[in-house]
């Protein structure tokens, strides 16, 4: 079994191509009670939260929907205006995809589970993994993976993060939907 796993790993590594890129995940807590309340009014609230090793996170809540953005320019990134159409909340665990550059691990994407409610108790609530790319002035959602319809949703989300983040243009590219 272990052998099988090793050979799979090697196969995956090889299929990444000629230049071996080291990518890994780290997980951080995203609990609004542990964040810093920036502003609050009748419409909603905004928070600063600590991400991977202090990577800045901006979280806003408005009209029963959540907005999550990253980096020093987080409030001005496209991600700060992106949410899902249904009423939603976010999970308390955030997955960071990191690329090794010399001795440093640099975050290039996150994967976060959003819980959806359409307000109708008769229909089941939904769960979507949102993949967000991180790049200064180009931080936005790149993929929505339905966590209930897709069997290996986390793996697929990671694949989107790893393969699509680098080239994704927040202004011109369209968000991937799985299933489409």
């Amino acid at each position: 079994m272990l052998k099988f796993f090793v050979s799979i790993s090697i196969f995956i590594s090889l299929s990444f191509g000629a230049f071996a890129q080291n990518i890994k995940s780290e997980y951080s807590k995203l609990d609004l009670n542990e964040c810093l309340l920036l502003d609050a009014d009748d419409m909603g609230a905004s928070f600063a939260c600590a991400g991977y090793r202090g990577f800045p996170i901006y979280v806003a809540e408005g009209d029963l929907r959540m907005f999550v953005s990253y980096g020093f320019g987080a409030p001005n990134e496209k991600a700060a205006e992106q949410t899902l159409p249904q009423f939603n909340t976010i999970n308390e665990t955030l997955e960071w995809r990191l690329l090794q550059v010399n001795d440093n691990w640099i975050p290039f994407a996150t994967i976060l589970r959003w819980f959806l409610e359409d307000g109708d108790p008769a229909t089941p609530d939904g769960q979507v993994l949102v993949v967000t790319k991180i790049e200064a002035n180009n931080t936005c959602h790149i993929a929505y993976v339905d966590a209930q319809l897709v069997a290996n949703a986390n793996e697929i989300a990671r694949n989107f993060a790893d393969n699509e983040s680098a080239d994704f243009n927040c202004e011109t590219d369209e968000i991937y939907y799985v299933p489409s």
Partner: protein
Amino acid sequence: MKNAFIILLIFFFGALPLKAEKITSAYMDLNIDQCVLMQIFDYGTQYACEGYKGYPMLVGEGDLKFFVSYGFNAPNEEAAKQTIYPYNFLDNNIEWRLKTKNGAFFPFATILQFSIYLPDEYLESQKTEQEILVVTKLEENNTCHIAYIDIKKTNNANEIAREIADQKAVDFNCETDEIIRITNE
């Protein structure tokens, strides 16, 4: 003389019954090895470090000097360009001054020790020329150094730094006001 005057002023304001405003400190570790690399330039590197409850904190390193700025606009704040010459390194502990806002504590200033050295001295003997407490005010688009307190030449430097933070940070204008310098000599 001027310094004595400032101390007197601080004493005077400190003795006034303040509005019931709750101010407190939070201390946090500051270790670049625990931060995340954000950018590499020809002349240095920028890191994000964990600030109070996630308040964004930027630490820049370039030419043997450190630059520390705060908030989501940290890279564009005045503080991102401020350091102490000729060379310095940072203490590994930072004090956040906090007061209540929206029912919770919110940072309005930090106090951080910069150790100043001449490169030869540091390499040969790890000797530092000066140790300066830097008080930085935190406000979006108005984040900058507001005071330098010479630790070796000032009694209760930390207390004075806190007083300046508490009395001066809110009204300090980064564009027009001059940095307060304290040495009891």
